C-alpha cells in the first residue's frame, strides 16, 4: 500500500475538505452511538467508525450529479454527500425531521437531491441497481458516474458476480467500492472466502484490473476515486476497488465485537484515518488553529442537530398510508 504524499495533485482546499468530511462522519456517528446509549436511537444501526477515509475520499472526488448507492452501513456515505446531520440523526431517532420522516430508518438513508440513491439492506441488491443507473447515463449520454459501496461480505453473494459481469460487458460508467474491514458481520472474511482479497482477486474474472488500496488514507482513496471516475466518464467501463480498512465498532449496535483477537483493534486505531490525516496536514504546514476551527465547526453542527432532533416531534401517523403507490396512497382496489 502506497503511503506516499504527493502534495501537487491534491489542492490544499481539497485536503481540508477531506479532513472536514472525515471529522464530520466520525463525530456524527459517535453522536449516533451516544444517542443509542440514551435509548434515543431506535432499531438497529451499523456504524462505520474507522472507515471514514473511504466515504470521504470517494465523495469529495465526485461531481454534482454523480450517484451514490450504499448499504445499510450507509450513514457515512450519506453524510459525505452533504446531507445535513440533523436529517440523518432525525431518521435514526424516528423523528418527523428525519430524511424519510421515519419511514425508512437507519438502514435505508436516501437523499435523491444529494445523489444518495439509497441505502440497501439486502446484501448485494444495489450492485445491479447501480448498473441500471449507469446504463441510463450511457443510454442518454449523461456524464454522471454511479458509485456503489459495499462490504467484503457482499463479494460472496450472487448479485455481486452478476453485476460485475453485467457492468463489464456493457462497459457501464459504474465504480464498485469494496470496503474490506476484515469481518463479514461476526466472522473473519478470510474464514469464508476462497481468495485472500475477496473483491480484487476476483476482478480478473470480469476482465478488470486488480486494485487494492489503503482505505485509511484519504489521499490514496481520493486519487483512486478520481482515476476510476475518469475512466467511467471516458466510456472505458467499470472499476472494482478493494479498500482495506477496519471498523472500530461491532457489526451492528447489538455486537460488542468480542470475536476480534486481542490487540487487533488497538493496532488499527494507531492507523486511525482521521488521526493520520490530521498529522499529515500539520506536516504539510496547515496550522493547528485551522484544524481546531474545523473541528469546532463540526461539533457545533452536531450539537445543533442533536438539539433539533430531540425537540422534533415523532412523524405524523398519516404517513403510514402514503407513498405505497405513485398516486401517493395505498389503494389496491376500487
Amino acid at each position, binding site marked *: 500500500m502506497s503511503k506516499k504524499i504527493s502534495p501537487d495533485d491534491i489542492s490544499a482546499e481539497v485536503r481540508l475538505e477531506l479532513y472536514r468530511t472525515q471529522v464530520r462522519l466520525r463525530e456524527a456517528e459517535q453522536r449516533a452511538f451516544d444517542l443509542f446509549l440514551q435509548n434515543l436511537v431506535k432499531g438497529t444501526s451499523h456504524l462505520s467508525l474507522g472507515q471514514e477515509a473511504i466515504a470521504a475520499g470517494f465523495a469529495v472526488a465526485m461531481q454534482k450529479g454523480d450517484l451514490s448507492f450504499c448499504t445499510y452501513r450507509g450513514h457515512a456515505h450519506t453524510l459525505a454527500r452533504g446531507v445535513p446531520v440533523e436529517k440523518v440523526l432525525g431518521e435514526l431517532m424516528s423523528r418527523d425531521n428525519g430524511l424519510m420522516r421515519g419511514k425508512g430508518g437507519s438502514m435505508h438513508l436516501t437523499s435523491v437531491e444529494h445523489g444518495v*440513491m439509497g441505502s440497501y439492506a439486502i446484501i448485494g441488491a444495489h450492485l*445491479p441497481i447501480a448498473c441500471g443507473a449507469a446504463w*441510463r447515463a450511457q443510454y442518454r449520454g449523461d456524464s454522471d458516474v454511479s458509485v456503489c459501496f459495499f462490504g467484503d461480505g457482499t463479494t460472496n453473494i450472487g*448479485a455481486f458476480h452478476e453485476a460485475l459481469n453485467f457492468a463489464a460487458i456493457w462497459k457501464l460508467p459504474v465504480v464498485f467500492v469494496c470496503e474490506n474491514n476484515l469481518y463479514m458481520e461476526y466472522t473473519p472474511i478470510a474464514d469464508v472466502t476462497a481468495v485472500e482479497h475477496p473483491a480484487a482477486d476476483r476482478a480478473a474474472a470480469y476482465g478488470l484490473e486488480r486494485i487494492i488500496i489503503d482505505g485509511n488514507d484519504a489521499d490514496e482513496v481520493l486519487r483512486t476515486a478520481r482515476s476510476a471516475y475518469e475512466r467511467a466518464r471516458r466510456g472505458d467501463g467499470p472499476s472494482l476497488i478493494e479498500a482495506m480498512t477496519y471498523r472500530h465498532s461491532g457489526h451492528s449496535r447489538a455486537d460488542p465485537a468480542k470475536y476480534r483477537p486481542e490487540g487487533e483493534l488497538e493496532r488499527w486505531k494507531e492507523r486511525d484515518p482521521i488521526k493520520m490525516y490530521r498529522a499529515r496536514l500539520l506536516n504539510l504546514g496547515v496550522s493547528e488553529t485551522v484544524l481546531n476551527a474545523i473541528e469546532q465547526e463540526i461539533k457545533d453542527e452536531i450539537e445543533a442537530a442533536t438539539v433539533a432532533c430531540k425537540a422534533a416531534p415523532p412523524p405524523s401517523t398519516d404517513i403510514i398510508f402514503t407513498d405505497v403507490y*405513485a398516486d401517493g396512497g395505498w389503494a389496491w382496489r*376500487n
Partner: protein
Amino acid sequence: MAELTYRDAVARGIAQEMARDPDVVLIGEDIAKAGGVFKATVGLYEQFGPRRVRDTPISEQAILGAAMGAAMTGLKPIAEIMFADFAAVCWDYFANEFPKSRYMTNGQVKTPLVVRLGNGGGARFGAQHSQSVENWCMMIPGLKVVVPSSPVDVIGLMAAAVRDPDPVIFLEHKSLYATKGEVPDGEIVDTLGTAKILRHGKDATILALALMVPRALEAANRLHAEHGIDCEVIDVRSLVPLDTQTILASVARTHRVFTVEENPRLCGWGAELMSIIADEAFYDLDGPLVRITTPHIPLPAADVLEDLVIPSSARIVETVLRTLSN
C-alpha cells in the same frame, strides 16, 4: 381490424410504446436478435436497434436490478424474465426493492418499470417451468399485477403498464401465445384495475384469469347449451389494482360465484376475492363460494397428468353443475 396472435400482440404492444417514448427500453435473455424464446419480441431489435433492445446474460438479478436503477433515474424499462418460475432467483427485487423503495424513502425514489414473465402451465415443461406465479406477486404491497388473456388486452394493458408510474408485473401466459384474436388498428391503451365481463349471465358468476378465461367461457357455453345454466364470465385481468366493484356487482345479480385458478390451492387470488365477497356481499349469496383450482401439488410434466390437475372446462362444468344442484 386484424387477427393477431397473443405472441405478436406482445411485440406490437411494446413497439407501440417504444415508438411513442424514447425512454422505453427492453432487456432480457435472448430477446433481441433471437426474438425471445417464446418469439414474443420478434422484430423489435430490427425496428429499434441494439441500443434500445438489448440482450443480457443469464443474470436475473442483474436484469431486474438494472431495470430498477434505470427506472429510478429516468428510463421506462421493460425487463423480461423468460419463465415466470425464474422470478424465484431474483425475488429480492420483487419483494424488497421495487415495491418498497418509494415507501421507505418517503416518496423520493420512483420505479416505473415493467417486468414481463412467461407464466403458467399446459406446455408439459414440468414443475419448474410451468407455475402460475401471480399470487406470489399479488401479496406484496407496492407492486401492480396484470394478467391479460387476449391479444387486444395484451396490447392495451402493456401500454397501460408502461405508462404507469409504479412497478408493474406483467404475466403473459405461455399457453396463450399461439391463440388469436381480433385487434383494432391504431393505438390501443387500456386501464389497469379493470375487470371485463366477457359473457353476461344470471345464474352464477365465474371469475377467471389468463388461460382459465377461455376455459371458463367454453364451460359457460356448454352449461348454457347442455344444461340451461346461464353463467356470467368475468376476466379479472388485473389483480392489483383489483376491480372489486365489477365483481361485487355481478355477484349481486347472480348470487352464486366460482373462481377458476390455475395456481395451486393455497393462498390463490381467488381466496382473496372470495374473502372480499364473503365480507361485502354475504347477503347477496345463495350458496357456497367455490374455488376451482389446481390441487396443492407441484405440476407434473406428462400431458395426461398435467391435463388432469389444471382446471379444464369439463371440470368447471362438472363443479358448477354439482354445486348448483345441491
